[in-house]
């Protein structure tokens, strides 16, 4: 339906494409060095704390506690300076593989569900509610929801929420994460979709498409960058969460998620905190891979054709 349109745009856009190619060649325009320097400076600033963790994760426990991590650079080849012991301890600690799998089991469906429940056509009462709900502290929701899961709910003897025996199942966690993730999803995506030119939708309507078709064929494809952004956040949030998973799954070893396992490593009095540095890097690996692989969706010009309508 919108094919004809896209064709039109391509034709119109041709000179522009040429122009942007020109830009690619004349790379260091005025201000080019400024751009590069600023970016490098900010990156260095952001990396320093993480670098501390990385260095510490490869040093032995006694050294970590007796000298600053930056001193490792002063004598990098000294014997006994570097070790992979922290990683070994972190990996050995009680079924890390299993909790990795559990984390995946929690993360993937939670992300997928949040996606599919996204609502794009909220009006503003719903919108107000959603913005307001962003502020609900998770901790306040845990007890009532756990009670719901375990006991169900009745109001004047009518079953309002059935006793589902959800507690201790992954399903309980997926649903909870979906619920908690919804406000941000609705808020982010409504904004993005609201910014799509209404002219495309109008013309699709004139072509006879119904809401459902418009939604799946037009809006979803156009929203890919926003969807990718949200996917990353939902994934991260669920991946790094230990509270929700702990509360609804329980602390049994067979269902422990990665972050819970790692957080427990430190010990209640904090005596093994250097183990956590390696643990932090282990648990960071997957989110970073997700981030990288979703990069290709943050591309320029998805809505290029849209302007003309």
């Amino acid at each position, binding site marked *: 339906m919108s094919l004809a349109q896209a064709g039109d745009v391509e034709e119109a856009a041709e000179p522009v494409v040429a122009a942007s190619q020109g830009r690619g060649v004349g790379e260091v325009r005025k201000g080019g060095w400024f751009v590069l320097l600023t970016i490098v400076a900010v990156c260095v600033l952001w990396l320093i704390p993480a670098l501390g963790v990385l260095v510490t994760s490869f040093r032995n426990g006694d050294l970590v506690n007796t000298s600053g991590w930056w001193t490792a650079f002063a004598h990098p080849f000294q014997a006994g300076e570097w070790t992979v012991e922290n990683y070994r301890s972190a990996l050995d600690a009680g079924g890390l593989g299993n909790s990795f799998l559990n984390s995946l089991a929690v993360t993937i469906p939670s992300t997928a569900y949040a996606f599919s429940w996204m609502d794009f056509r909220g009006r503003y009462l719903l919108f107000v509610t959603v913005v307001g709900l962003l502020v609900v502290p998770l*901790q306040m929701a845990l007890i009532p929801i756990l009670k719901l899961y375990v006991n169900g709910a009745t109001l004047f003897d009518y079953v309002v929420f059935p006793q589902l025996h959800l507690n201790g199942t992954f399903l309980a966690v997926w649903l909870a994460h979906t619920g908690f993730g919804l406000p941000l999803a609705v808020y982010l995506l409504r904004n993005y979709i609201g910014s799509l030119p209404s002219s495309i939708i109008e013309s699709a309507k004139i072509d006879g498409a119904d809401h459902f078709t418009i939604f799946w064929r037009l809006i979803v494809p156009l929203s890919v960058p926003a969807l990718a952004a949200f996917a990353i956040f939902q994934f991260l949030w669920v991946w790094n969460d230990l509270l929700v998973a702990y509360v609804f799954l329980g602390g049994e070893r067979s269902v422990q998620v990665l972050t819970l396992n790692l957080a427990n490593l430190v010990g209640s009095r904090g005596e093994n905190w250097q183990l956590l540095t390696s643990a932090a890097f282990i648990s960071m690996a997957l989110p970073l891979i997700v981030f990288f692989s979703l990069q290709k969706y943050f591309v320029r010009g998805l809505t290029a054709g849209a302007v003309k309508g």
Partner: protein
Amino acid sequence: MFALRLVGAVVIPIAAFYTLWVTFDFLRDSEANRVIVVGVAVVVGVGGVFFLYWAMNRAVELLPERYREGVRPWIFVGPAMVLLSVFLVYPVINTILISFKDAQSQSFVGLDNFKFVFTDESMLRAIRNTLGWMILVPVAAVTTGLAFATLADRLRRGEAVAKSIIFLPMAISFAGASITWRLIYSFRPAGFGSNIGLLNGIMLGLGQNPVDWLSQHPWNNLYLMVIMVWMQTGFAMVVLSAAIKSIPDEIIEAARIDGASEWQVFRRIIVPSILPTIVVVATYMVINSLKVFDIVFVMGNAELNQTEVIAERMIRWFFIGQDYGKGAAIAVVLFIVVIPVMVWNVRRFREEEMIR
């Protein structure tokens, strides 16, 4: 004919619900092979939800025409509303109710808990500090994120790497982040071995005495905010970057051809085009700063250092102090503080509706 259509309109969604229910039931029971369960969960979950929307859409089609447009929005919004009410609205109501009761939620105490919230010295400090967080953190994170997204957009190579570096802190779990910053702020007085915090390492290198950074009121509030900015700028950067990418190239190029400077391009084209997104990101940042508690919680005794924030007080009173009434009342204050933000958003939303 009409009756049949109506029956169809009712039966089909119910059928869709039941199909989902039966598979959910399977997922709940089965603990056998986690990989298979996850596979089924994703396929059935996503496919099932799609099917649900599709079936309900079909059902609406069966309705007489004059009802259709009235009902249709509800099928898109309805399921999400159900989830929201179970997981968020219900707990909010519950919290408000508890806030009028005593420590163990046994009897009503009227406004006593709120009187505590607005008279307790430490609570008042928490409210003041939180206002600081709500303003400074979003400003810092959004500005940095916007600047970085704009500049990175102009890199020919290495954009993904540069963005990943800013994004990196978001991937660290909170437990990891607290360790990260211990390696920056850690303090040992003279005599207790060498300092393992970078800042005190620098101080010693400069021939100064080590400083207990986290007890330097009021600056310690800023030191804690830095952690939040470090963690959250990645969010602002990613979302703003996606918005910048959606500005059509031809507009920017046209402006450049017309002789606009880069700064003018940024001021006159980029910022106005992504303004709605900036508002969204800022709102989210404000709300996140409002909810912050773990940073404050882990980095020392908040009361001693006078770094209390509202959410941290809430957790402390509710879970550690075991005073559900006071804890819930503090949570209600959180809901109240967010009202201006909501009003601002709704106003913007209305304006946007009018333009379209």
